[in-house]
């Protein structure tokens, strides 16, 4: 799997390169600025772009802008965005085209290499990886009349993990439950929230995120 990596801090760039190579990714290009990233994405045609939001020369949201532009050129180009902070605003922009194949994670998630690599693979495969912190704000402090308030504690947990982009199997593993139990929970919570749930994991995750965002 060929990856274009954009990160301006040398140490982090090297660290990420090492981590990804260790787990069988091939680094097609490791760049340090927005324009370089735009070039690399156009020329190398990677299977996945791992992009830091803040890049030179502007040190604003250069990385995010280049990634979004590249996805307009090539819809569905898998992009995993890393940042020191997560904003729902950015999550919405990444999810706006409804195609999926996006990830948005805090940089410190690389501390847990397995989960990070898992998220990268998921995004490359057309799935979604949303940071738990983004999902936590989406699920937080529901109003009393909100359908979310009618969910059981367990259903909420399942919903949160699904919104992060995990498949039923992965959710089951995280919660140490059987897959059967998980699918029972999902059927129930989709009923309560009136979400159309397809069998396909990706489409289901996007439906959940769309529901949470438009609430």
């Amino acid at each position, binding site marked *: 799997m060929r990856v274009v990596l954009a990160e301006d801090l040398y140490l982090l760039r090297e660290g990420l390169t090492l981590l990804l190579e260790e787990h069988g990714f091939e680094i097609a290009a490791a760049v340090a600025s927005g324009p370089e990233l735009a070039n690399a994405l156009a020329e190398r045609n990677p299977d996945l772009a791992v992009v830091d939001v803040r890049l030179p020369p502007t040190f*604003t949201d250069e990385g995010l802008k280049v990634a979004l532009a590249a996805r307009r050129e090539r819809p569905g180009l898998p992009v995993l965005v890393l940042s020191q*902070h997560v*904003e729902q605003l950015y999550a919405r922009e990444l999810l706006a085209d409804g195609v999926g194949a996006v990830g948005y994670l*805090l940089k410190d998630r690389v501390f847990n290499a397995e989960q990070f690599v898992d998220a990268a693979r998921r995004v490359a495969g057309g799935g979604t990886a949303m940071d738990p912190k983004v999902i936590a704000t989406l699920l937080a402090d529901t*109003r009393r009349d909100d359908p979310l308030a009618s969910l059981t504690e367990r259903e909420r947990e399942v919903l949160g993990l699904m919104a992060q982009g995990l498949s039923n199997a992965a959710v089951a593993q995280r919660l140490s439950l059987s897959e059967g139990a998980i699918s029972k929970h999902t059927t129930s919570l989709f009923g309560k929230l009136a979400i159309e749930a397809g069998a396909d994991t990706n489409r289901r995750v996007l439906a959940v995120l769309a529901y949470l965002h*438009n609430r």
Partner: protein
Amino acid sequence: MTVWVYPLAMVRAAAQFVLAFAGFILLVVSVLCVLLTGPLLGIPAILTRRWWPDLTRRFASWSGVRIDRPYRQLRESAGFRALWKWLISDPATYRDSAWMLLEPLVGGVILLPAVLTPVALAGAVIPVSGWWFGIAGWGLRVLLVAACFVVAAVGIATAPALLRVHAKWTKVLLSPTRTTVRLHQLEETRSEALESEAREVRRIERDLHDGAQARLIGVGMTIGAAERAFDRDPDRAKELLLKARESTALAVRELRDLVHGILPPVLSERGLGDAVRALVLEQRLARETQIDLPGRVAAAVESAAYFAIAELLTNVTKHAGATKVWVDLAFARERLRIVVLDDGCGGADVAAGSGLRGIERRLAAFDGSFTLTSPPGGPTMVTMEIPCALSSPRTCTSSEKA
């Protein structure tokens, strides 16, 4: 209002009339002190004579005219030389002098009818009591008495009005000039801005010292322990390394919160418009934003506006019991205008909460305004305006409902 207002005003006017001449003598004495002895007697003389304009300022409140003291603030640690410089460089000293010089003339003319009243009354008594008996004929005497009563009546009837006119004349020279008022305001907001900056720096220092710095020392020690345990007890070493990793994650989280408190990254990445949009998205309320900000404003203004809105939204969530909040951000006529409205319980009061007062003070440093309307039962609306300039025009007008 009783009839007593008239004689009272007359007495007050007469008293001020007499004092005007006493004030003139005070002026002459103080000028002589300054000219002959310099600061030696000049300082006590100028300080003492301020008593008279101060008294007059207080008198003006009889007529409902408010005159603020115009004198500059003296810094606490000033010595003799600084005290002298402070007195003779203060424009208010010269304006006081001018007023004391002119007061017997201008004030004298204005207050004259009031002073004439007792004179006229006395004059009326003389022909009646017969002292002038034989000097004038009856007809002339009646005329004199009538004239005296007319003068007295006019004096009494016009006394309150003249007192007011006198207060307004006083205000011309004894109130602070626009420059002085502005100077006061700038001094105040500057010292507040400096103080709050110093406070902020102290807070950051403490947070770093007690937070990330301490935690990283802990991480270093844990890794050291893991190193030592590596050979004899690999399981223990693994456990320690895991602990070190967790501590590092915690330190990163703390640093992130700290950075957010100093300058939210989304603010520096996207500017005020998107930062407010991001902020509103975090609110778990129904919300509506209307943002019309075609460009960026100065970083300091962005930051002040952002934190003001953040604090208002926190208030809405915590205290208002609202179900919906509206945030409106627009730039027009060289002003940034922010409106935050909620449908909560109202009853917010700037005097009651230090938070609102703090926002008002911070905006004052930008010559900004802060208006709160919050009747009991709601809704609460806060309007803030900050004069500023717009740079790098670029369109990003949008509204969003959720």
